């Protein structure tokens, strides 16, 4: 039993990095995602096409490949062209990859959230003389965020698990801590059970919190938005495109 506890405690030492990377990535991801979502909903192809390409590339490639490209591929490319470049810390490309990755998924969540807001809201705002931008900012986006808050929470939970791939490029987070301990002790089973427990300690309370918020919001606005259950499941479906929702 002691070995399992050791494995768990060792793995837990990686938790600050895992949480830090996930938090920054989800925060940047939301900002990026909002921009991308607005671009994708734009009528101008010059905005729409790059945003669509970005989302397709990110969603169409594994995050581990993206991580290798950023951590090792880009420095190699620059060095081969005579630019002396090396990441000071591998955590920098790690955060970039996770943010870019999260941005693409969050963009799809936000896009479906924006589309779930009744069209009449935009018409009402515009009929009062508001510009498109002002209507978006004051009327549509606040409502969309309430709709997608649970999906964003799930995105955060998913991202915590996804950051485990960063161990492949040498970022010392939960998974890497376990791997290193395994390499030193050959206690493979306790090591990875410890890693699994360390992730669960983070993800289970978080997904409970998300469920709680979701239930609260369902009560809050039950009568003003009869279409909400459908819209919400669309958003959830969008989020679950990403593998394994908790």
């Amino acid at each position, binding site marked *: 039993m002691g070995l399992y506890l050791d494995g768990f405690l060792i793995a837990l030492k990686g938790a600050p990095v895992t949480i830090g990377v996930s938090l920054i990535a989800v925060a940047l991801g939301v900002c990026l995602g909002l921009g991308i979502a607005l671009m994708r909903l734009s009528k101008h192809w010059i905005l729409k096409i790059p945003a669509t390409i970005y989302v397709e590339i990110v969603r169409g490639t594994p995050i581990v490949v993206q991580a290798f490209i950023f951590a090792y591929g880009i420095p190699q490319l620059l060095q081969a062209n005579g630019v002396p470049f090396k990441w000071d810390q591998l955590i920098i490309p790690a955060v970039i990859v996770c943010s870019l990755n999260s941005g693409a998924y969050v963009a799809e969540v936000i896009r479906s959230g924006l589309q779930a807001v009744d069209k009449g809201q935009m018409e009402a705002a515009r009929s009062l003389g508001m510009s498109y931008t002002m209507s978006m900012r004051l009327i549509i986006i606040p409502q969309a965020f309430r709709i997608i808050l649970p999906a964003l929470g799930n995105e955060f939970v998913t991202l915590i698990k996804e950051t485990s791939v960063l161990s492949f490029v040498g970022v010392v987070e939960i998974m890497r801590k376990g791997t290193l301990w395994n390499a030193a002790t050959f206690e493979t089973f306790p090591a990875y059970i410890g890693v699994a427990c360390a992730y669960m300690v983070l993800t289970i309370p978080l997904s409970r919190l998300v469920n709680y918020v979701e239930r609260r919001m369902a009560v809050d606005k039950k009568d*003003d938005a009869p279409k909400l259950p459908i819209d919400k499941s669309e958003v959830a479906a969008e989020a679950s495109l990403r593998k394994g929702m908790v």
Partner: protein
Amino acid sequence: MIEVKGLKKSFGDNLVLKGIDEIINDGEVVCVIGPSGSGKSTFLRCINMLEEPTAGTIHIDGVQVTIEHINETRKNMGMVFQNFNLFPHMSVLENITVAPIKVLGMKCHDAEVRAKDLLKKVGLEEKAEAFPSSLSGGQKQRVAIARALAMEPKIMLFDEPTSALDPEMVGEVLDVMKALAHSGMTMIIVTHEMGFAREVADRVLFMDDGYIVEQGSPEELFGNPKEVRTQAFLSKVL
């Protein structure tokens, strides 16, 4: 004065408005009636460019309405929708003050004073802090009217304002609209309430199949319709 010339609107291949010419004078209350799909709502929505006309022009007080300057135009033109479209994340008071504050640049306090005054007029002063979800349909629509009036528009457009209401709530909304009509507001009202149109309208337009088929005073149009289509429609609804 609103001057509509040669107004056409199509959605894809579907020509909904087939050429509307109409002049609506200041202070006039015009009710638009007709069967579903006749283009009544589209006509109304073209006036403030919620639908962009396919052809034709609209002038308001001699100034052409264009999509580029539409925000200016809309400041003087309130609209009330069938489904209320109140902002669910804002209180009643915020619903009414948001546009005056953000669009007209009014001070919060002044906007609130105006909003409370309007709420009193529509009989909902005690609901200022309530959220739309706690209101009945009739109350929502009265708030929506107050919200549009808060911009102090010269023209009010009503798109079937009572069609989504339970029958017992229709009266309270129509009462507010009657008071507004008597105050001299220019109003264009798409409605299925024939009794209301007869009582309040200065003029009634009957639309069918993308045209204004017939128009006249309520007495003429309801009492002695000339066109066969008008007669057929009225025989069904009256």
